[in-house]
């Protein structure tokens, strides 16, 4: 295979990986309405735990990290997701119970920065600013993969995992649990009045979303073999938000479209462009500016995203409509055009 195809498969990997990450943020923000501005921190936790669990004992590797159990592939990934979920429980109990939207956003951004600061400075945890490296390639021994053939192989594995997680996510979204999430998103007071405990459901949503974040992060470290703090600056959360907003909040197909447009076409494809002579890094800077601008343009002209959320109808609503008493149906972004003054 030529180098071109390795590029293509790298892009395919990031497409599927960000699809998973977007689904996780979508259930938190798009379905339940939690503004999780610390999302990338959960991705990082998943990545570090997956990596550290699969690495051999730290003694003699020249790195410092906890765990080092040499855990084989799917189990370290699962562990990464579960630890991210466990951290989400902790975070939810501290911040989700009484904070208003803007407080919540500020505290979560701060949390993301502080976690970054601690992991960056405290070397014994995950090797500090150098991050983890030389993480073993999963299943390479079983299938006799080389460094090159590993790329398409793992892109396909990620695709299968994404498919599985898509299946589970769409089941959750169609279930009564998903309906309750959306009820809380639209008005948690009303949901509470109907006997649903908003905090309990927000907690559940945080746990599920954080698991997706953790698995997505784990796949990143397994694919690249390394992970360090530059990969998860707090601004990266914004990229995931861009994916779900461009794709369409509240819709899984939209997540895939968003991942394709933002992550694959805008973030990773330009990395293969040649540098502008005399201006190192300029392409990357312009690239990030374009992502920011695209998001504003999308919010202004098409706030419902490329693939809008489907209006869900219950049997009762359909019966009403048949009798000519159609109720007003709204989604997260519809009805936002009115002035809020």
């Amino acid at each position, binding site marked *: 295979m030529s180098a071109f195809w390795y590029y293509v498969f790298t892009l395919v990997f990031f497409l599927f990986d960000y699809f998973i990450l977007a689904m996780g943020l979508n259930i938190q923000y798009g379905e339940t309405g939690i*503004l999780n501005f610390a999302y990338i921190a959960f991705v990082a936790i998943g990545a570090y735990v997956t990596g550290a669990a699969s690495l051999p004992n730290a003694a003699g590797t020249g790195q410092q990290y906890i765990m080092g159990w040499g855990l084989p592939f799917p189990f370290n990934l699962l562990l990464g997701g579960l630890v991210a979920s466990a951290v989400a429980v902790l975070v939810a109990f501290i911040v989700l119970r009484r904070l208003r939207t803007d407080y919540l956003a500020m505290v979560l951004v701060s949390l993301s*920065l*502080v976690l970054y600061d601690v992991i960056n400075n405290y070397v014994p945890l995950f090797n500090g600013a150098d991050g983890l490296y030389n993480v073993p390639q999963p299943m390479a021994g079983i299938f006799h993969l080389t460094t090159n053939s590993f790329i398409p192989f793992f892109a396909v594995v990620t695709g299968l995992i994404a498919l599985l997680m898509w299946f589970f996510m769409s089941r959750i979204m169609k279930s009564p649990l998903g309906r309750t999430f959306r009820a809380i998103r639209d008005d948690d007071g009303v949901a509470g009045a109907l006997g649903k405990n908003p905090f309990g459901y927000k907690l559940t949503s945080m746990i599920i979303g954080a698991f997706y974040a953790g698995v997505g992060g784990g796949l990143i470290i397994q694919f690249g073999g390394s992970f360090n703090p530059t990969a998860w600056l707090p601004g990266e959360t914004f990229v995931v938000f861009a994916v779900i907003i461009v794709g369409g909040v509240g819709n899984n197909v939209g997540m895939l479209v968003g991942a394709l447009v933002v992550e694959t076409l805008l973030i990773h494809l330009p990395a293969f462009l040649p540098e502008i002579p005399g201006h190192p890094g300029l392409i990357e*800077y*312009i690239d990030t500016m374009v992502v920011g601008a695209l998001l504003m343009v999308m919010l202004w002209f098409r706030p419902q995203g490329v693939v809008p959320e489907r209006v869900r109808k219950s049997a009762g609503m359909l019966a009403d409509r048949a009798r000519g008493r159609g109720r007003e149906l709204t989604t997260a972004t519809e009805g936002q055009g009115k002035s809020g003054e």
Partner: protein
Amino acid sequence: MTLFWLSVGFGFVTASVLAIAAVGLSLQFGITNYINFAYGDFMALGAYFTYVFNAEFFHWNVWIATVCGSLLMGVLAVIINHLLFSRFARRFSKTFYVMIVTFGLSLIILNVVYSIWGPDVRAYAMPIERVVRIGPFLLTRDQLLVMAISVVVMVGVAVMLKTTRLGKSMRAMSDNTTLAMTSGIDTRRITTITWFLSGTLSGLAGAVLGISEGNITPAAGELFLFVIFAAVIVGGVGSIYGAMAGAVIIGMATEISAAFIDPAYKLDVAFVILILTLLFRPNGLFSRPKG
């Protein structure tokens, strides 16, 4: 003990810078009701405007450059609000949309700064200062001037809010925008003036941070933003006096803690105070009921 008093001195300097920044953020939040996540990048821009006036092109005295850089940032904030924020705020009732726009703007400004000035650390052109000893504190003349500026700004903002017609209108708007509008207050004009003040203060804070730290980097504002958030939340979001008090608490706590623990964890001390405040007094120490 000397180390302790030294860090108390630095605490005053950090608190001064933080107070300017926190008051700027709080003023704007009180009026418009959404958080400006680009505030840290406003600070960086103010610092780099000052750098242009001071070292890159004009070679003015650093304090004159600071004034010009801050005012320029104030004007830019008004333009940004007019072209971007106010439009999104009028169109969408959920603050999430404006917050995401400020987040996006933060990404754009940061990368504009990187593209123009590059990632290198830069410093203002200013004479090297002799250290002055005042009581147990060791400070440079510039650091003393930073504190003086901060005190002047705080008193100025307090007097403006208490006595002038503008200040009263601002307080009325921050209590209840609709009521203020029906009472004949020109809310658009007040919003514009508030953005000018907030932008100017952010620019001033950025430049003064650069002066007291001795260097400026594009990402310095973003890291500082979290400390501002901590100060604002500890003091009570939207309360100006709370922001001032929060700035003193967070500024002193981070610097004094650096005398006892590894200074790399300074930020985390601010975060611990933030979490404790949220657990025991979730609306901040100086919050007032909001209608």
